[in-house]
C-alpha cells in the first residue's frame, strides 16, 4: 500500500514538473508572442500600439512566476485558457480533436495487438522454424519503417491504385480504416518480437511440467499460465507503445488530413498559439504519466513478486 502511495506521489511530482517545464519552454521560446498574436489577428503589418494592447490583454507583460501562476491556477480546475489567435476557449476544441484521435489510437492498438499476438502464436508453434524466422524478419523490417512513410505507401496502394478506401479527411467511419491500419502495423512490428520471446520464456518455466502431471489440460496451461507469463513483458512495453501511439497518431493525422490532436498541435505551433500548444503538450504528459502509473499498478496485480520485492 505504501509502495502504491509513493508511486502516486511520484506521478504527481512528475506532473507538476512537466507543467512547469511546458510553461517555461513556451515562455522562453524565441520571438515575441504578442507580435505573433497581433499579426494573426490583424494581418501582417501591425503598429506598435496594437502589439502593446495585445500584450496587455494576453497577460504577457508580467514576470515569469506571476504568469506561471496565472496559467496554472485555472488549470487545476480544468481551464486551459483561451486561444491567443481566435480568442475561443481551448478546451472544447481540444476535446473535439481528442474525439478524433482516441478512436484512431484505440483501433490502431487493437489492430496492432491482434496482428502481433496471432503472428507470435504462429511463430512459436515451431521456434526456429521457417514461419518463425519469417515472422521475426518481417517484424524487424516493420520496426524500421517510419510510420508516415508506411501511411503514404498505404495511401498509394489502397486509395490511389486500388481506390478501395478513402484516404483524406474524417467524414465517415471508413476514413478511420487506413490511418488505424498504419498505426496498427507499426504497433504490431514493435510488439510481435516481445510477445514471441515472452511466450518462449513462459514455456520454459519449471512449473509447467508439474502442472501437466497434476492433470491440468494443455489448454488450461496455455490460457491460465503461459498467457499470463507472456503478458508481463507486454504490459511493461505498453507504456512505451503509448508514446509511439501518440507520436504515430500525430504523424498519421497529418498525412491523412484528419482533424485530430496531431493537426491541432501542428497548426497551433505554426500559428504560435501558445495556450493551445501548452494544452496539447500537457495533455500528452498527463495521459502518459497516468497510464504509466496504471501500468505499474497492473504489473503488481499480474506479478505479485514485484510488489513484494520493493516493499
Amino acid at each position, binding site marked *: 500500500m505504501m509502495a502504491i502511495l509513493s508511486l502516486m506521489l511520484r506521478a504527481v511530482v512528475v506532473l507538476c514538473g512537466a507543467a512547469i517545464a511546458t510553461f517555461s519552454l513556451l515562455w522562453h*521560446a524565441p520571438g515575441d508572442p504578442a507580435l505573433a498574436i497581433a499579426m494573426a489577428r490583424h494581418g501582417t503589418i501591425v503598429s506598435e500600439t496594437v502589439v502593446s494592447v495585445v500584450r496587455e490583454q494576453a497577460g504577457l507583460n508580467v514576470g515569469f512566476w506571476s504568469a506561471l501562476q496565472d496559467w496554472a491556477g485555472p488549470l487545476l480546475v480544468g481551464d486551459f485558457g483561451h486561444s491567443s489567435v481566435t480568442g475561443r476557449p481551448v478546451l472544447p476544441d481540444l476535446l473535439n480533436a481528442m474525439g478524433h484521435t482516441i478512436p484512431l489510437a484505440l483501433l490502431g492498438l487493437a489492430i496492432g495487438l491482434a496482428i502481433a499476438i496471432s503472428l507470435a502464436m504462429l511463430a512459436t508453434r515451431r521456434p526456429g522454424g521457417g514461419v518463425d524466422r519469417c515472422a521475426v524478419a518481417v517484424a524487424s523490417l516493420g520496426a524500421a519503417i517510419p510510420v508516415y512513410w508506411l501511411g*503514404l505507401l498505404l495511401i498509394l496502394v489502397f486509395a490511389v491504385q486500388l481506390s478501395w478506401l478513402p484516404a483524406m479527411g474524417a467524414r465517415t467511419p471508413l476514413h478511420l480504416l487506413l490511418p488505424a491500419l498504419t498505426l496498427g502495423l507499426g504497433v504490431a512490428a514493435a510488439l510481435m518480437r516481445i510477445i514471441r520471446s515472452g511466450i518462449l520464456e513462459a514455456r520454459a518455466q519449471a512449473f509447467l511440467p508439474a502442472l501437466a502431471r497434476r492433470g491440468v489440460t494443455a489448454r488450461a496451461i496455455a490460457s491460465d499460465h503461459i498467457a499470463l507469463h507472456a503478458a508481463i513483458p507486454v504490459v511493461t512495453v505498453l507504456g512505451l507503445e503509448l508514446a509511439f501511439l501518440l507520436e504515430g497518431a500525430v504523424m498519421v493525422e497529418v498525412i491523412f488530413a484528419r482533424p485530430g490532436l496531431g493537426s491541432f498541435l501542428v497548426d497551433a505551433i505554426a500559428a504560435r498559439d501558445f495556450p493551445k500548444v501548452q494544452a496539447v503538450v500537457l495533455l500528452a504528459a498527463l495521459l502518459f504519466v497516468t497510464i504509466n502509473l496504471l501500468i505499474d499498478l497492473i504489473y503488481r496485480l499480474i506479478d505479485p513478486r514485484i510488489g513484494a520485492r520493493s516493499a
Partner: protein
Amino acid sequence: MVLAVFGPWLAPHDPSAINIPQRLSAPGGAWLLGTDALGRDILSRLLHGARWSLGLAFLVSVIGLCIGTVVGLLAALGGKTLDWLVMRITDTFLAFPELLAAVVIAGLMGAGTTSLIFALSVTGWMRYCRVARGIGLTLQSRGYVIQARLAGLSPLALARWHYLPALLPSLAVVWTGMFARAILGISALGFLGFGVQPPLPEWGTMLLDARIHLRSTPLQMVWPGLAVVACVLAINLVGDMLRDALAQEERS
C-alpha cells in the same frame, strides 16, 4: 555508412541543379531513379541527403550519450538527495513522448538545422541516463570500486577509470537504438516541415516534397523512405548483435 561518406562523389548529378524540362521524369536513362518536381536528380539527392540524415542523427545521438552519461553518473555518485532530484528531473523529461516534444521544441524555435539538433538532443538523453545510473549503482558495492574509493581516488577519477569502462558496452547498445531513433526523428521532423530546410537534400524533407506528387509520380516517394528503412534496419541489426554478444559475455 560508407555511402554517407563517399556518396557525394558517387552522385552522378549536382543535387540542387534545377532542370525544369526534365521534371518528374521516370526512372531510367540519365536519371537512374528519376527526377523530382524541379528536375533534380533523385539519386544524387539521396546520396547527398545521407550526409544530412545520417550525419545529424549521429551528432544528435552522441550529444544525448554525453549528456545522459554525465547526468546518470552524477546521480549514481552524488549521494541520495542528488540522486532523487536528478531522477525526478529525468522522469519529468520522460513524461513527454519524445518525438512530440521534439516537434514542439523545433517548431517553436523556428525550422532549421540548429533547432532540430537542439530539440532531438534535449529529448534524447534520458535512456542513457537511466542505464548509466542503474549500472553505476550496482558498481558502488563492488569490491574494486570500494577499494579504489578507500584508496582516496576522487569521484571524478573514479568515474573516469572505474565507471566509464564498465558502462561502455551497455551504453553502446542503447546508442545504436537511439541512433536509429534519431534517423527516424530527423526524417519525421523534416517531413512535418520543422527540420532541415529545402533546398538541402534531407530524406524526410524529400518525402514531404514527394507527397504532393503522390498521384502523378508515386515512385518519387518510395526512394527516400527506402533509404531510411535500410539505414534503420542495418543499425538495429548491429544493435541486436551487440546486445546478444553482451548477454553472452555476462552469462560466461
